[in-house]
């Protein structure tokens, strides 16, 4: 690639005066040419070489030369601009190529910002991540398997529950039907269920039914109690 190799070192100390060095050099060159010309002929008589009517800087760009010989804007003093000028126009631009290299501390900062982890760290992190994902999947699968084992049992329970509910509803309906039938039998003729008498009778019947149930319950309780008392006395007698 390169016909020969330049080696420069960039130090912070010597970065300060790039622009000045360069422009001074340019001015010096200008000064010497002026001297030579004043020796030979009057400047005002020299014909203008630039007939293109282009601005000097634009003409320079056209001729692939450095557009400005002096800084015309603060931008021309920035490192970025001077690097670009060196990159484009080479050593002829008069810019010290040391400016192309970044100051060490700044480049270190850039490096740190973009690369937090080493390759080994990245690999181990990725491994940990994949393992965690796999574990989560396995956990979910095992949970599903455990639930599937119980599925048949749960299905049976559900069916029994539904069947019981239906049976209860049917029994209640039949009971009610029976009561209505009884009321009708009491009156001896067909009574409209919406009739007041019918309703009263039905209520009475229901009350009776409830009473009977209550008594039956009470009796059962007493029987139970008695059985216990008898049992305890018999055991006492034994002892």
């Amino acid at each position, binding site marked *: 690639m390169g016909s020969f190799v330049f*080696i420069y070192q960039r130090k912070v100390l010597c970065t300060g005066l790039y622009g000045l060095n360069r422009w001074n050099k340019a001015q010096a060159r200008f000064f010497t040419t002026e001297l030579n010309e004043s020796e030979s002929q009057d400047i005002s008589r020299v014909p203008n070489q630039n007939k293109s009517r282009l601005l000097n800087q634009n003409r320079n760009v056209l001729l692939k030369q450095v557009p400005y010989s002096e800084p015309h804007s603060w931008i021309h003093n920035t490192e970025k601009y001077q690097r670009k000028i060196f*990159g484009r126009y080479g050593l002829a631009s008069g810019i010290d*190529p040391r400016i192309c*290299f970044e100051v060490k501390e700044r480049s270190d900062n850039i490096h740190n910002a973009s690369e937090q982890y080493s390759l080994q760290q990245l690999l181990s992190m990725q491994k940990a991540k994949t393992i965690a994902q796999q574990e989560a999947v396995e956990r979910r699968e095992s949970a599903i398997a455990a639930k599937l084992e119980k599925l048949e049992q749960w299905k049976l329970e559900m069916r029994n529950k539904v069947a019981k509910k239906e049976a209860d509803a049917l029994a209640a309906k039949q009971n009610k039907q029976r009561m209505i039938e009884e009321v009708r039998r009491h009156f001896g003729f067909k009574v409209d269920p919406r009739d007041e008498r019918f309703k009263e009778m039905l209520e009475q019947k229901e009350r009776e039914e409830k009473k009977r149930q209550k008594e039956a319950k009470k009796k059962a309780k007493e029987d139970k109690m008695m059985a216990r008392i008898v049992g305890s006395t018999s055991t006492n007698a034994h002892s």
Partner: protein
Amino acid sequence: MAHLRESAEKALKMLRTLPRVQLSNIRPNPNSKKNTKRGRAQHSGDKHGAGNKGSGQRQNYMRLGYETGNNPFYLRFPYEPYYKGHHLRRQYPPISLLQLQVLLDTNRIDSKQPIDITTLCNSGLLRLQPASMEYGFQLTDEGIDRFKAKICIEVQHAKESVIAAIERNGGVIRTAYYDPRSLQAMVNPSKWFEKGVPIPKRLLPPQDAVEYYTSAKNRGYLADPEEISKERLVLAQKYGYELPRIEDDPDYEMLISQKDARQIFYGLEPGWVIGLKDKLIIKSKSLPEEQANREEKS
């Protein structure tokens, strides 16, 4: 005193690069007068600077996102979680083996040189836009039966069948990651060199790509070379072809030329500045490699 002079020079240098003080970058002095009175009559009476008609005058601005009774934009579309982060995902524009074969046959690409992103972009027929999240090329298997070239190629993604097709012809393939900054340099090197900036150092792949580029099966550039040669044999057995011996190949040097994991251009190292005009390579003495060389000499 040296440090004082140094800091003074630093300050001066900074001053030189700062813009001039002008109306657009100054603000009122602290505690400067601020008029709190609302003018009457001719002294800024009339509308008091609030403008004529509408929200401006009445100072009753609508809440953010409200569209005066329209179905607001932020509520208009249903939730689409499968697009989450799609703007951050890496893209790999495809090139097919057929396309590659055509490029080689029409001498757009020299098969005697290793092929990478720069070669492909320099063909003038393929484009890569690193700024649009394009992270390099993927080689697809279209035209796989008609691919006959022996090449050394570096792409960013390739299928197993594509790897087999290239190795069957006695070629070499590597998959490599480049960060967007490096890609920008690779896509148009002359433009990069004209910036007068050192060649950047290639960064490591992001965490989710590390696994791919360290795997020998994918011929990743971070994989162990011995593992890769083993995987070459495995793939040859799987696809049922005899693996050509690249050691006996006349182009052996070209075929095994690999970039360093930090390198971007063949033959050029990160940290070098390239002067295209004068055909120069400019190196810094502070580069670690140069320091080592100097120590050897002394």
